[in-house]
């Protein structure tokens, strides 16, 4: 059974067709990459899947259930989580607090108990904080736990978003350009993190322009151009597809991609 199934998705903005008839399926523990030139509709696709935009055509299924049009917080309850290309960090909160927000669905949300800080709330805060510290260690941010998120460098923020998304314990994780703006060392680290996440059984959908990273870790690749699917298959299939080379990779990109796989 596929974790995520997208069927004939389409959306337009004014006159612009941002997505047209996009379909694919992603299985648990799979790393599924979506690539394509700027403006191809990759982020829009994530926005539709995660419930931020209602699609004009098509369906989205999670675990076989039709979830099209459900709001994002409902989808989160069903195991969907994501990161954002244009960082959506809680900049005024500390790094640890950012992750703690990600634990929201796993906390008891009885407001009356919160008003009077019953002992259970304190115990829960400690448990949430401990979880957050584990996740920070996982993405190597432990040192920065009590810093205000707004004061972090870019690469650290990318990892913070990943850790925050993991805090919800997702079954499906959408990563929108997790390595953008990161140096090679940080990219390497993110590469490891993604592989570990998938290995734990999470279905990962990855949007990324770093072809070395994509070709190296993806199980399958889906290529979009101007909102339409132009290819899908293994790294080797996609790399040698003439249409993909013409629309996106170029000759240079193709060589780069080939090197990554060896």
């Amino acid at each position: 059974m596929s974790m995520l199934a997208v069927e004939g998705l389409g959306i337009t903005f004014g006159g612009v067709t941002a997505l047209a008839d996009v379909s694919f399926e992603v299985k648990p523990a799979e790393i599924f990459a979506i690539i394509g030139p700027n403006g191809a509709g990759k982020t829009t696709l994530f926005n539709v899947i995660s419930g931020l935009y209602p699609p004009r055509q098509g369906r989205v299924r999670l675990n076989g259930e039709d979830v099209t049009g459900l709001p994002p917080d409902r989808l989160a309850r069903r195991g969907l989580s994501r990161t954002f290309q244009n960082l959506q960090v809680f900049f005024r909160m500390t790094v640890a607090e950012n992750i703690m927000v990600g634990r929201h669905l796993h906390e008891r949300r009885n407001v009356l108990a919160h008003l009077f800080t019953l002992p259970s709330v304190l115990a829960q805060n400690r448990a949430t904080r401990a979880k957050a510290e584990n996740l920070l260690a996982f993405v190597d941010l432990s040192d920065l736990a009590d810093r205000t998120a707004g004061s972090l460098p870019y690469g650290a923020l990318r990892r913070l978003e990943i850790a925050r998304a993991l805090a919800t314990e997702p079954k499906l994780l959408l990563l929108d350009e997790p390595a953008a703006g990161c140096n090679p060392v940080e990219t390497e680290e993110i590469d490891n993190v993604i592989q570990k996440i998938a290995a734990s059984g999470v279905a990962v959908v990855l949007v990324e322009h770093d072809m070395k990273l994509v070709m190296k870790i993806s199980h399958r690749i889906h290529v979009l151009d101007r909102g339409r699917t132009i290819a899908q298959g293994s790294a080797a299939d996609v790399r040698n597809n003439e249409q993909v080379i013409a629309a996106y990779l170029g000759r240079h990109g193709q060589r780069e991609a080939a090197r990554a796989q060896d």
Partner: protein
Amino acid sequence: MAEFLQFAFSGLTVGAIYALVALGFTLIYNASGVINFAQGEFVMLGGMVTVFTHAAGVPLPLAALIALVVAIIVGLALYRLAIEPARGASPVTLIIITIGASILLRGGASLTFDKSFHSLPPFAGSKPLMIGGAALLPQSLIVLAGAGAIVIALWYFLTRTLSGKAILATAANRLAARLVGINTNAVVGLSFGVSAAIGALGGILMTPITLTSYDSGTLLALKGFAAAMLGSMGNPLGAVVGGLTVGLLEAFSAGYISSSYKDAVAFLVILGVLFLMPQGLFGRGGMERV
């Protein structure tokens, strides 16, 4: 029938003023994304300055001109001193700033002038025209004609002059406008000046009918905002239709239901729009980018 007509006349008259306030909101909103809560104070200034300069012996047309100039100066100063320094601030900050400006102007008016209600003599006599048994004041005609002329002038300004086109371009896409060499800051300043002028003209036209006082701006702003929202925020035609609609709804509910709650109509319109058609009458349903 006569009664119905009577309510319709008064509804259209106040509605024309609400339309002008809504246009002021629209202009500034389009140019800068700011909702200027001091928009009602421009209307108040138009009325109050005219009243007091006229009372000091200045002939009415000249008094009106002075009021117009004062309002424009205040509008530009508001932009220069309070909006521009806070560029890039969050909406919450900008709301508080323009609300502060609104209160400041109220306070200034209550000190410079006074705290009572004032009126102006009608511009063209007070002998009503009888139409279908309903009385139509000449001043109402002047308000309607004046508002119509302002709308046409604004349309001409926006579509036929370079400055106007710069405003439209900035509204459509700020970044692109800057790239083609438009000074978008100057455009926002200009929109404050034009909005102030529109508001002041509305205030001058309506004062012979509805009276004015230092604190009349807040309700006008609320009603103008309801009108702008009904007509889809940012749409000038929508602002006019919205203004007339709010005016008519208010007049009919005052006439047929209760006049003590006529001011509540604007709030109900806001709630109604929210519930039934969040995009307003002319909305195109854009989506916030994430």
